[in-house]
């Protein structure tokens, strides 16, 4: 498949910021990668438009000092990522260059480090034998990468069916060694190593079927799991103004979620936030395996001061690596912070190419680009019947905190869970600031998920969740009435409804991301607490005057919160539960 070929060359005729126009002497393709031969280094660039014999390329570097007439070599390939064992716990830039092996304090132009080490030795165990017929994505063997079973697959690029001619015996091999030889129908032979490549802009489709997702993905965050659950293979997004806690929430999800592999794309955000992950993840334990969190994590860092063009590449790089692990039958969680920066990068380029703009100057195909990207997530049945998933959660940074802007609106059409962060909740320190009424999860309406929840959580779970939603809405209405009519201008019931909703807010919705215990609530415990809270809701209390309502419920909330801070079913937990019980008894009407 790799016959020597003469690739197109060209020379620079125009430069506007990181958009470079190249006059070419032969064919070029959209999204083809080229290298600009600038003085001592080669700068990587991608074709984003072709007009006659002019290719418009976006350069993944600063174009300072480039001159017209400079030579450009095209590669014939699109932007590709390198896939194989050794990706886990790596820190990459948006183009999958290893940040740790780069030299010096500062990023150097054209310092393109390798994504994987081909000499690294891995234990290999074959799972096929000579004579087997295989197709793209089928497992040829497996190795162990940070305790994750890493399958070595027939490269995704292999169309049609192949026959295994040879497969290596169990043993230790370099990643670049041939571990199998496949033959096609015409008896051409292909050497297979543990490493393959795949173009990031194309979805990997080596699976049999993509059903509607139906399995709950536990994030251990109550306001998500209980009220607006996300599923394995689901999509969600978190819009919110600055300071509303997007990043803290995403970090919490990345630490706690029940996933085999977590990929974090830091796309155009603050470098110090990535540094926080670098500093913390190698120390934090993965609650599922007891190993360090970093061992299941891959970070794609394209911070806001890194080249703008690779922002777009960074989310695709992350998604493609996710698809690779999904094809092995693993549960992948992909987080991107923030997709607005990626959209802005698209806007900058579209502007430089003088395209007619859509709303707010964004390219007109922005909704299509976003929905196409979100569609790459999902739950799949592999060809061998195993399952894998990519759950994708992106943050959106709406300009001015206004949700009626193109990126938020386009994402709303594509993502199935909407976690709206509210400035008001953030201001009153009610974290996570997910607005329980504005936000939604479409999945909870799926009969598939309802069935799953009935089986795995409890028979009437969805009914309870709906009830909780209703209480929250009624609580909000009561609060509005009280604000208008005054404390003594409303019936006593209003105060009770308001405070019963506040109990749900304080006990279920609010969660301390910095507390050892509270930050992570497994489903069993969420179920227990929800029942407790509903028990309070269904109890009638008697009060002499409205002034007694507030202090009484504050005591209830306090006991509940102490329970939240205690180890589930520990002595402390039981003590506070008893305390709660006693407080309830004080005013319970028989």
């Amino acid at each position, binding site marked *: 498949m790799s016959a020597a070929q003469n690739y197109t060359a060209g020379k620079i005729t125009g430069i506007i910021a990181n958009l470079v*126009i190249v006059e070419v002497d032969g064919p070029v393709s959209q999204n083809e990668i080229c290298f600009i031969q600038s003085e001592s280094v080669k700068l990587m660039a991608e074709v984003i438009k072709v007009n006659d014999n002019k290719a418009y390329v976006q350069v993944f570097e*600063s174009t300072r000092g480039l001159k*017209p007439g400079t030579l450009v070599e095209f590669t014939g390939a699109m932007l590709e990522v390198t896939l194989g064992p050794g990706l886990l716990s790596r820190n990459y830039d948006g183009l999958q260059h290893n*940040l740790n092996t780069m030299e010096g304090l500062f990023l150097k132009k054209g310092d393109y480090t390798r994504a994987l080490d081909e000499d690294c030795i891995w234990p290999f165990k074959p799972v096929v034998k000579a004579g087997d017929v295989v197709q793209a994505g089928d497992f040829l063997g497996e190795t162990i990468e940070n305790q994750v079973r890493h399958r070595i697959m027939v490269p995704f690029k292999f169309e049609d069916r192949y026959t295994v001619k040879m497969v290596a015996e169990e043993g230790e091999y370099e990643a670049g060694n041939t571990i199998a030889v496949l033959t096609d129908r015409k008896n051409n032979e292909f050497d297979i190593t543990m490493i393959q490549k795949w173009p990031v802009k194309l979805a990997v489709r080596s699976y049999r079927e993509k059903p509607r997702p139906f399995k709950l993905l536990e994030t251990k965050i109550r306001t998500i799991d209980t009220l607006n659950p996300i599923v394995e293979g689901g999509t969600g997004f978190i819009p919110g103004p600055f*300071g509303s806690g997007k990043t803290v929430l995403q970090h919490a999800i990345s630490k706690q979620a029940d996933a085999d592999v977590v990929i974090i794309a830091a796309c155009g955000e603050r470098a*110090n936030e990535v540094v926080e992950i670098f500093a913390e993840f190698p120390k934090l334990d993965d609650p599922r395996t007891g190993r360090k969190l970093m061992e299941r994590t891959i970070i794609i860092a394209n911070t806001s*001061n*890194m080249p703008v063009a690779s922002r777009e590449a960074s989310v695709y790089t992350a998604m493609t690596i996710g698809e690779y692990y999904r094809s092995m039958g693993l549960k992948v969680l992909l987080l991107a912070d923030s997709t607005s920066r990626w959209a802005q990068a698209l806007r900058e380029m579209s502007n*430089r190419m003088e395209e007619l703009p859509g709303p707010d100057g964004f390219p007109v195909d922005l909704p299509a680009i976003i929905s196409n990207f979100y569609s790459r997530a999902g739950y799949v049945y592999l060809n061998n019947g195993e399952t894998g998933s990519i759950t994708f959660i992106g943050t959106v940074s709406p*300009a001015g905190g206004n949700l009626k802007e193109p990126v938020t609106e386009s994402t709303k059409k594509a993502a199935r869970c909407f976690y709206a962060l509210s400035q008001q909740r953030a201001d009153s320190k009610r974290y996570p600031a997910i607005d329980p009424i504005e936000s939604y999860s479409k999945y909870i309406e799926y009969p598939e998920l309802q069935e799953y929840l009935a089986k795995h959580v409890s028979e009437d779970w969805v009914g309870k969740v709906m009830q909780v939603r209703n209480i929250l809405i009624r609580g909000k209405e009561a609060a509005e009435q009280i604000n208008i009519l005054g404390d003594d201008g409303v019936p006593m019931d209003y105060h009770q409804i308001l405070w019963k909703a506040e109990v749900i807010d304080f006990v279920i919705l609010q969660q301390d991301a910095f507390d050892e215990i509270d930050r992570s609530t497994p489903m069993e415990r969420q179920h227990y607490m929800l029942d407790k809270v509903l028990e309070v809701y269904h109890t009638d209390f008697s009060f002499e005057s409205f002034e007694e309502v507030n202090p009484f419920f504050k005591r209830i909330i306090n006991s509940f919160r102490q329970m939240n801070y205690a180890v589930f079913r520990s002595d402390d937990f039981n003590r506070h539960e008893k305390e709660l019980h006693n407080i309830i008894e004080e005013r319970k009407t028989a």
Partner: protein
Amino acid sequence: MRETKAFQKIYTRITQITKATCSLQAEDVGYEELASINGRLAQVVKIMGDHVTLQVFGGTEGIPSNAEVMFFGHPPTIKVGEDLAGRFFNAFGEPIDGGPEVEGEERETGGPSVNPVRRKQPSELITTGIAGIDLNNTIVTGQKIPFFSDPDQPYNQVMAMVALRAEADKIILGGMGLTNDDYLFYKNVFDNAGALDRIISFVNTTENPPVERLLVPDMALTAAEYFAVEKNEKVLVLLTDMTLYADALSIVSNRMDQIPSKDSMPGSLYSDLARIYEKAVQFPEGGSITIIAVTTISGGDITHAIPDNTGYITEGQLFLRRDSDIGKVIVDPFRSLSRLKQLVIGKKTREDHPQVMNAAIRLFADAANAKTKLENGFDLTHYDERTLHFAKEYSEQLLAIDVNMNVDAMLNTAWKLFERHFKPAEVSIREELVNKYWVKEH
């Protein structure tokens, strides 16, 4: 930075002149290269074949179509060295204090970014003596944080105060669109304080052309990188006013016929601002760059594209507010936020810092509610009245920007105020801290 090579080609035919740019046919020109047009400094912003567009920093007023254009063959540079200390420069890095040219190593400004894996997590606080900052919104080395301030607020005074008091090895002022009066104010304050040997200023005043401002942050930050990387120094960079910087960006993009996005700002505003603010960094060898900026806003509106994009980039924001009860300017404890304070408070400062900070702000919020009640004609409880008294003293003795003390003294003052107005239960601070710090009965 303006020397030219011998036998340099001189162009004399300009084909297009706008208010901010000139275009001409020229060969062998590099992108972002500097040029001079009849002695005015300009930079290449667009190349189309042999057609080159230059942004003219000094403005194009009076430039003729036969002006002499020479290309320098390199992007903007600055000479860096210990000699920079104590000096005032213009946006081109030329002395404006009457002193001699600086000797030093010539460096390109606006250089590459730090590899994120080579950064260190910020962990050292930088004190200013202002309680609204040190106590409530502690700033950490390597942080970037702006004041969001209406133009009538005394942000330049606060910045000057921070410059004089901050415990930093070097303080670099990047002044963009300063009025001449404000420039003289800074000069005067720095001269009189005798702190001049650690202060470096790059100043563009309103008397200079606006496009010149675009050079100031890069000058200031390239100098900062020199001291932070080569000398392992703690460098504090003060940038005022970033709104005028952004306005200059929009002028240039407008003249280049780019499609504006929100609020007439260029679509690349976020990246342009991030490139500057992300120069804030903590290096592993101890050097650091901390950026405190001013972004003037209009009528407190933070949804405008400039403060909005800034807020997404910086690690928090500070608000000034006039407190009518005490007639002084305070750092607003409600709207201000330092995202990195968690890294140092109670760790590098005294153990009671986080709890005291939160308790005081909570009580201050109770006072604000009491005030609303009072204004709406409701009766106040005894507790409400005490919070009002507390709030007044808290404002006066801690939040006012003219207060200058160290963090321990701030904490002691807060405890004193708690004790004067409240019972320990009302303050709700962890018991062991109350036992240790609550001022004993008189």
